[in-house]
């Protein structure tokens, strides 16, 4: 059997196992507001253990708002968010961050006046720097560019390197769920490929659950087991990655301009 064949098998088994267990992250009928503007309108999303789930949608659809709402900024005004069976809807942001979920947020938000190492130390802050050396080693294997720049200030690195650092920083807390917000934004196609390959590896090899928000719908849906489409604050479609890729509506709305 080919490697690809095994991978498909692994993925299917994982999907079947996941369907039986309660979802790792569950967003139920969540609405969030910026002032009086309703940015999320009753969103339902599930992310099962071991899955890669993509959320695609146009600029301003509310994708990043959902990512931040899961972390309590802003808090959901209606609905519930559960992670690993725990209701996290009303928890303060820093307490959510201590629960085995980590985010590489929109715009990367690297600490630009800290070195790469210090940024990674910040990522490991929730577990008090236990197994820091081991995790640092892992990140340097995953993204060798970070090893080369370990004592360089974050702000002086290229966009692609900053994105790698943002992901590595999120991984330093050893999360069960990694949330990625627009990791491909503004990056060269080759770098995007590297980053997506790294995410796929983490999922296949370590069983890491990934929730990814992307405007780059083609790449995201290719990567994901399942996907959701968001339009002006509501989820309008969902399905397996491939099903969404083949959907004529998705094609027309998000895959125009082809497969970069």
């Amino acid at each position, binding site marked *: 059997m080919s490697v690809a064949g095994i991978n498909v098998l692994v993925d299917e088994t994982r999907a079947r196992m996941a369907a039986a267990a309660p979802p790792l992250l569950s967003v139920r009928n969540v609405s969030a507001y910026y002032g009086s503007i309703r940015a999320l309108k009753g969103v339902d999303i599930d992310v099962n253990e071991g899955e890669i789930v993509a959320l695609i949608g146009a600029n301003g659809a509310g994708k990043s708002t959902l990512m931040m709402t899961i972390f309590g900024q802003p808090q959901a005004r209606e609905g519930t968010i559960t992670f690993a069976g725990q209701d996290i809807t009303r928890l303060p942001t820093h307490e959510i*961050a*201590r629960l085995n979920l980590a985010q590489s947020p929109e715009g990367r*938000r690297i600490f*630009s*006046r800290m070195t790469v190492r210090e940024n990674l130390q910040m990522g490991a802050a*929730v577990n008090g720097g236990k197994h820091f050396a081991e995790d640092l080693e892992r990140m340097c294997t995953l993204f060798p560019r970070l090893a080369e720049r370990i004592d360089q200030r974050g702000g002086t690195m290229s966009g692609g390197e900053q994105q790698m650092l943002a992901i590595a920083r999120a991984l330093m807390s050893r999360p069960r769920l990694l949330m990625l917000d627009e990791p491909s934004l503004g990056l060269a196609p080759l770098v995007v490929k590297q980053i997506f390959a790294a995410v796929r590896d983490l999922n296949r090899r370590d069983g890491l659950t990934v929730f990814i928000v992307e405007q780059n719908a083609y790449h995201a849906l290719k990567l994901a087991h399942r996907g959701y489409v968001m339009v002006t604050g509501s989820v309008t479609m969902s399905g397996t990655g491939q099903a969404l890729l083949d959907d004529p509506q998705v094609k027309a709305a998000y895959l125009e301009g082809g497969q970069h």
Partner: protein
Amino acid sequence: MEFFAQQFINGLTLGSIYGLIALGYTMVFGIIGMVNFAHGDVFMLSSFIALIFFLILTSWLGLTSVALVFLIVLVVAMLLTALWGWAIERVAYRALRGSFRLAPLISAIGVSIFLSNFVQVVQGARNKPLPPLVRDVIVLYQNEQYTVTLSYKQANIMATTAALLAGFWYLVQRTPFGRAQRACEQDRRMAALLGINVDRTISLTFVLGAALAAVAGLLYLLYYGVVSFSDGFVPGVKAFTAAVLGGIGSLPGAVLGGLIIGLIETFWSAYFSIEYKDVAAFLILIVVLIFKPSGILGRPEVEKV
């Protein structure tokens, strides 16, 4: 030459006190980008706390060991002043976080006025003296006309400032708490996303800033032997000048700025006119703000976006 040397020592001492107060300004500014204008009055308040406990220990309880008294007063003054720092942040600043930039500044000025008036009411408007505890001096140089001395008090002040600068530099640059502080300074929301309790980090920064002010307040009281309710203002503003001169947000910059201000003020008083010493100090602030707004060791703004 001997006169110059003596003035240099005096200037370094004064500068060390300014530097210690400036450390508190610069640390709070460094983390929340706010000038805590009440810091000078927290310093004054801590001098009073120190004075009260000195008198309790020496007059009432009759303790005679200077070192022991000094230590107890130091610890008590730091604790109580830290409590004030915590309360001030809680009451006057936290609610205003996230509102427009001028709001906490105005609130800080309010706290400053409150503190000096509070002390005036409860302690009276007159200068409060402290009987001198330490008179020993080290004679560094002596000839027929002139003696250059370094008093124990002066040596103590310089050593304390150097030690606290080193300690706080280490704290900010090398410890997890310092990293969390710097993370909050750069991007509070991201710090929270990484599990940092931003409110607690800021609270602790105010507590540390107040504890630093308490050390400065105690040393000031020992050095001058007198304190009044209005003593927060001028040293406070000069320390602020020092922080700006050194580059606000930089800990070594704060002490460097303090030393420069202290030296200029002392030499100005010694060689020109004592009446114009404050004019000289504030002239520096104006010149620095015009020609080098980021200060001597201010952070170089080279960032890629």
